[in-house]
């Protein structure tokens, strides 16, 4: 065995491989990126409970992870995947995040998490405020769209997607719409 520093035990590897879409090498790569964000917080070897307990605060992950840094929904993504709901990611949360965004993840799981990400207020529906927030985030750093324009877009989206007439998109309606969006699968992924 020598002086080889083993990051995870075999048991941990097997668990992670069964619970995510990653191979061993990819898991190690993910860990390396995780560690690069806060080398002081994250130890070189992860014991079982550390994988859950060691958390990187929201601001650091948003600033230092290039994959998330430019994403307009970065805050919401971290909130959805973190256990405390506030955006502080542990290693397992981070692994989960990247697993869902990987290429092998099937469409269903991506749709599920996309719904949760776009549902900013967490009421299991994508309502007008959620959509307004999304449009605002998408066009940040540019000329501002007037509130009337935003309202028009929000209304058009709801008009297209809402089937049962309650003025907001439920999970089923969202799923129906997303299945018809050809770009969703190709844009909703992060390469590590």
């Amino acid at each position, binding site marked *: 065995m020598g002086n080889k520093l083993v990051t995870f035990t075999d048991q941990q590897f097997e668990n992670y491989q*069964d*619970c995510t*879409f990653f*191979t061993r*090498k*990819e898991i190690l790569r993910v860990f390396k990126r995780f560690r690069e964000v806060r080398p002081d917080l994250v130890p070189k070897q992860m014991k079982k409970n550390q994988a*859950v307990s060691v958390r990187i605060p929201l601001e650091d992950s948003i600033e230092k992870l*290039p*994959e998330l*840094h*430019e*994403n*307009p*929904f970065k805050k919401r993504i971290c909130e959805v995947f973190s*256990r405390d709901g506030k955006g502080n990611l542990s290693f*397992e*949360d981070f692994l989960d995040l990247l*697993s*869902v965004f990987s290429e092998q993840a*099937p469409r*269903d799981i991506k749709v*599920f*998490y996309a719904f949760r990400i776009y549902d900013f207020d967490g009421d*299991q529906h994508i309502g007008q405020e959620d*959509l307004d927030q*999304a*449009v605002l985030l*998408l*066009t*940040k*750093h*540019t000329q501002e*769209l007037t509130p009337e*324009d935003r309202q028009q*877009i929000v209304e*058009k*989206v709801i008009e*297209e*997607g809402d*089937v*049962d*007439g*309650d003025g907001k998109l439920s*999970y*089923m309606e*969202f799923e129906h*719409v*997303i*299945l*018809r*969006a*050809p*770009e*969703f699968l*190709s*844009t*909703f*992924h*992060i*390469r590590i």
Partner: protein
Amino acid sequence: MDVIKCDCKFSASFRTSQVMSGGANRKKASRSQGWEEAGSEFYQESYPIDADIEVLQKDPKHLATLLPSKQNRTAAATIRHRTNDTRTNNRTVRRRTATHSRRDSTVQRRASAAGEVQVSMLPDLSEMRTNEQTSWEEIMQIKTLPLPMREKKEMKAKILNEPNLRLQGYEQFNWKRRKMWGVLESRLRESFNEMELWKGALKHIEGNFGTGVVAFFLFLKWLFLLNTVIFFFLFLFITLPTILLDYERLVNCPYNATCCAEGYFNETLSENNVFLDLIQGTGILERTILFYGFYSNKTLSYSLGLLQMYYNLPLAYLLIIILCFAISLVAIIRSAAKGFRERLIEGEGQFYQYCNLVFGGWDFCIDNEKAARIKHKALYSEIRANLETEKIKEEKQSRTTQEKCRIVFCRFIVNTVVLAILAGCACLIYLVFDFSTNKLAESTSRTQTKELFFEFLPSMTIVSLNIVVPFTFTFLISFEKYTPMTVIKLSLIRMVFLKLSSLIVFYMSLWRKITCNKVDESQCVACDEIPVCWETFVGQQIFKLLLTDFGTQIVITFVINFARSQLARHFDNKIIKFLGEQTFDLPKHALDIVYMQNLCWYGIFYMPMLSFMAAVIFLLMFYVKKFACLVNCKPSSVIYRASRSNSMFMLVLLVAYAFAIIPIAFFFAELTPSKSCGPFRDKGSVWGLIVDLFKRTPEWLQSVIFFLSTAGFAVPCIIVLLLFLYYYTAVNSANKHLVEVLKNQLVLEGHDKQFLLDRLSLFIKQDNQKRARAEQNGGRGDANT
């Protein structure tokens, strides 16, 4: 309690608080009278019961939150259900095991109403007990569940801890085999990921330009791999046997014919220096394995020990070429079918334009600040454009007839001009080709540079036309006032026509060069004007064209466009910026690539090693295009969608494939191979080889094939196919109608639900008020006594 049948993708939804440990369930047993406690394997759904109704009565607004469709879908579980055994008090619930294939995770569950049906059946051990295979399958399914990691690990631990039957005999063998295969697959995938070509470059481009542009580079990679496969086949079955077995270069002379081949191979080579020969394929390269002319028409024989084996080289040559074309076609169709299926789904209903923009607009791969800003801007412009389109549509309605006429007239003029330009290009290419071959045929002495100039003149004309004319097209299309999407499509169509029709003209001029008016059978060469081995000549022309095209690409990318982009970057002058700034125009670059692939396909018959050259060229083109993309261009404000790009590439490739295969088929059937070289030198046409072979097959086979080609077979076949077509069209339209009906029904159900909720909350409110009044009266009554 009601009978519940749940049929959903992620199985039952359940309250997170109620699951996971048998202990928790047991505590809740008293609450959920209708549900059997089943220990840790039981995932249940809880509907409002007495305890909940009390909560309801306090506040009717809670009612809506108790609806099943609003249950928290965070925990999707229930992979399997099992029979309950005697842990319960005389009530057993029978559940069906979930059978899962890898892909299908639909679960059906039926829970019998405990109150009404008292079924005490002993569990059926043989059917219901888990075994290793099912538990392994379940573990494989865990990763598709949308649960946080902690819960997934708990679920896995639970599945592992349950008692398992070991499988016996055949089943065990089957299962072990599947498990091994799964492990092998993941290992292979891991090693393939390591070896993936150009992974870093693709990620870099993706981060900067988005997935639409990456689709182009993936297309390039795909073509590279296709060419490598074609080369592999050609080398293995044609070149390698020739090298190994035909080394003696014995030229056999068929009796009764003059030995033309001998004359051809003993001819003195033209005197040129090596470099010129390399780029033109003449001289020392001419009579090598590179070109068609080298391959012999004999059946090569070799001995394996005591057996004498034969290898029919002409037949192999023909069949391998056909195989390569078939492989290309299958690869294209498979790739196109994937995209086509998606577009069919998309085009079936409406295209959710705004939803697609908001939910699928942002590319999650972008990791670069500059690119992110540009993407934001692009999204903003697209949103703006969509809002404008609404206004334009309204404006279009209100267009007067006069304006409409003017626009139609304009479009008509522009289309005529475009056709005229295309015709002009065709004539020009033809004349230039004629002119230069005539000049070369004149035997007056010329300097080497002049000779080189005339050799390459046709190729250079084609290439320069391909560069200049698209600019004219872009200029003209601005007069036609189409929507942006139509502009892109129409420009692409016109450029496709330009490039591929120039190729057609090229082929036709070649054809004129190699056919004769009067055929002289007795000579080795059919007439004096054509070259002795015309297939090699054609191969050389295509080789020159491919090389010129590649060279021009390099010069343009690294010299001209680079200079332009550097100028635009360092100077702020408006004119310079206009000339210098370029965006990565996806259709144009895709067309360049497809054009090269077309040349390669057409040329592999005349020059089998062209596939190797094409593979090398595509390898280098990746880096050339990468340079063009990353250094010369700035991210464009047009959002290229990956799926649309893919289908566009495949469509254009299919058109190019058709343009390549039609002349080849014509050649197979009609033209006479040259007598002095090549594997088909003694046949009347290439297809004659197949005909000869066919004549040697048994009688019954011949009669069957004859029958297949008669009208007696073809007409019923066509009728049956038409019937199938009609049937599927009818089914298709019926399905569309059904979708409409279901959509309407869904809307009505939504309204019904709303109505019922309103009534129910009203009723509860009234009930509350009545109760409050009754309490008040009772209290007053007490106070009075």
